[in-house]
């Protein structure tokens, strides 16, 4: 996996914890269809955990637009100023 494809460790850890899948692997191209258990219900739990971790709040427009995991990381990076 190249750096451009990699997911920040904090995001990966959050997905693994919420979905209870310690060995889960993710890339920026990962979509909900690729991950067992990543559904609209667990997604809200993931967003709550990411909000706490990064000190941000998601808006409606950001929640509506979720092509893949990369788009979520881009939103996090833009909001937090961290490399997400």
């Amino acid at each position, binding site marked *: 996996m190249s750096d451009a494809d990699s997911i920040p460790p904090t995001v990966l850890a959050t997905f693994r914890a919420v979905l209870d899948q310690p060995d889960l692997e993710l890339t920026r191209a990962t979509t909900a269809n690729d991950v067992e258990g990543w559904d609209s219900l667990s997604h809200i739990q993931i*967003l*709550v955990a990411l909000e706490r971790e990064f000190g941000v709040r998601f808006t409606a427009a950001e*929640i509506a*637009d*979720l*092509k893949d995991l990369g788009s979520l990381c881009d939103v996090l990076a833009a909001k937090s100023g961290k490399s997400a």
Partner: protein
Amino acid sequence: MNSSAKDQTEALLAHIFSRNSLQRKRIEHFHATTPAAREGLEQFVSLYAPYLATAGLSWETVGDAYLTMVGQVGEARLHFMRTGNYPARDQTEAREQVYDRPEVMRPYMLGLAVSQFLWSHHFACKNFFERQAEALSSLRRILEVGSGHGWFTFRMLDLCPPTERLTVLDISPTSLELTKGLLRTLRPAAVDEIEFIEADLMTHERPEHYDFVVLSEVLEHVDDPAGTLTHLHAQLAPGGFLYLNTCANCPAIDHAYHFRSCREISSLVRECGYEVVEEAYLPSENLPPEELERRQLDVSYVAILRKGGR
């Protein structure tokens, strides 16, 4: 179903799926397990297309409106999980933020209209309503409170047309405009016979007047659900029916009253003098009732209620 409706349905879904992979997963699963919902969506698309054309709207616009609504519900759910409260403090704030703002209300209603065929509990609510409406007959006067996107109004004209008058009352001018627009296209002969009233329900008084009142997705929008139910009880003729659709633990941008459970709603309607003819708890997720309540997940309450005395 003509190929055009099929193509338009596929284009609508493709538009949604390309922008939100979670919605793709959810909707594909729902349609795979409930083919009637997918067929219903195609019928909806077929019927709705002439209205969209008249209104100068595209299916892409409807898809975007749906996704906007999904985002708004998601943001409201996040607020609810952080604070335990719905985002709107009361019905006045909901009115200011949503009902009185066409740029918010219009896409919100378009999104809700199509959600009837994309969300399992909204589809179940729609089916419950249609089954109940079809079973009612000899209705002279009907009152629909909060017509929203207008789809239920349209369906009533087919399923239980009143012999005397259908009154549609809504606090939102945008809702009335959407409902009138839909009916002008789909049932032009009927629209001029309908009485449209822009008002707060609590100011509308016709004691013992209506045989059937439709209160769909309204009760969670008011500050005083008991007062609303009692007010409507007085407007019903003896033996009249009320269709109720509301929800527990269902944060949204314009929901003001937080019901903690469907049992709470079921108790309330009885306390307000109604007999429950039939009721159902329709969950947004396929989980056991205790788990839904523990996690405070959205459950719709639908019922056909009766005022005693006939």
